[in-house]
């Protein structure tokens, strides 16, 4: 009888210790309800200066040391959350004539755009869509930031058709 009482005490003690030491875990009842949690914030960016004409540039020039200005493009986060902004470009398209350049590292009829953020180094290639490159990690609302774009010209031309490439800035909540 005494042994049985001691055994019960042991069980009680161990159970109490277990309850005291175990992590507090809540077991929710199963439910079929899908939860939706929304951050009702605005995503919006604005660019005042949205065009750049490099003019006539010689073959083989890189980083557009000609016709380029540091901090040329401005981006303002006009939303209500910090915004991550990435940059990409759509392939070259002819504006005159009928031939397009190929987008990529300089070669015959092949060129690319490069950018930097206020350094004037033009050291990062703007990738062709759908690839993207980080531009601003967390752009604070109402505070503009700046970047500049240069061009790595083709090494040679087989035609003189004027080219255009559109840059897309993608903004999301950071």
């Amino acid at each position, binding site marked *: 009888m005494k*042994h049985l009482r001691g*055994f019960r005490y*042991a*069980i009680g003690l*161990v*159970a109490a*210790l*277990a309850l005291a*030491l*175990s*992590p507090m875990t809540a077991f929710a009842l199963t*439910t*079929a*309800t*899908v*939860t*939706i*949690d*929304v*951050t*009702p*914030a*605005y*995503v*919006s*960016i*604005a*660019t005042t*200066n*949205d*065009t*750049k004409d490099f003019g006539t540039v010689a073959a083989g020039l890189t980083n557009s040391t000609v016709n380029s200005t540091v901090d040329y*493009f401005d981006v303002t986060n*006009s*939303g*209500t*959350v*910090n915004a*991550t902004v*990435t940059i990409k470009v759509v392939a070259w398209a002819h504006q005159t004539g009928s031939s397009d350049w190929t987008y990529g590292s300089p070669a015959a009829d092949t060129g690319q755009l490069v950018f930097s953020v206020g350094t004037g180094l033009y050291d990062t290639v703007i990738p062709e869509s*759908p690839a*993207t490159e980080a531009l601003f990690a967390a752009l*604070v*609302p*109402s505070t503009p930031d700046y970047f500049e774009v240069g061009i790595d010209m083709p090494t040679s031309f087989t035609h003189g058709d004027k080219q*255009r*490439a*559109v*840059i*897309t*800035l*993608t*903004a*999301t*909540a*950071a």
Partner: protein
Amino acid sequence: MRARLVVVLGIVLLLCGCAPQGSGIPAIVPPAAPIVYAGSEPGDDNTWIRPAIVRLGNFEPGDTAEYSIEVHNGKSVQSMYHIAYRVPDRTYEGFVPLDAAGVRFVTIEPMALVLGPRETRMVLITVTVPKYETPPVAWEFWISVVDTEATGLIQHELCSRWTVMMKE
């Protein structure tokens, strides 16, 4: 007597969480809500979308969830906007990007909007995972909004981030 004690102690230890774990992967937590800057709402002359983030939880195959995003044309002229499913460039920690095939889980209605000057309209996003599908435990996709009539060298794509956590 001693055997009984050992058995009871074993059971208690198991209940305490001392049992071998199925995996060492830490639990995925929903992304934290970002700081929202009150008072910096965009004006009528800014193009914007809202909300920035939508988090779906407790989701399981066979479930459907709906939520609408707003799209505002900040221009003084009419413009067309294209709304599309987008593979994310990055994700919240623990979430995996749903690839292009993930578009089968998402319905967008309408996928194109013609908005008048300063006009705002709603776009209904429906997420459905069929019962026979087994998506990742936590995944993310984006809803992309692009002004297809923008003419400048710099154009904008605004994205709403959507995260989905499946019921485990």
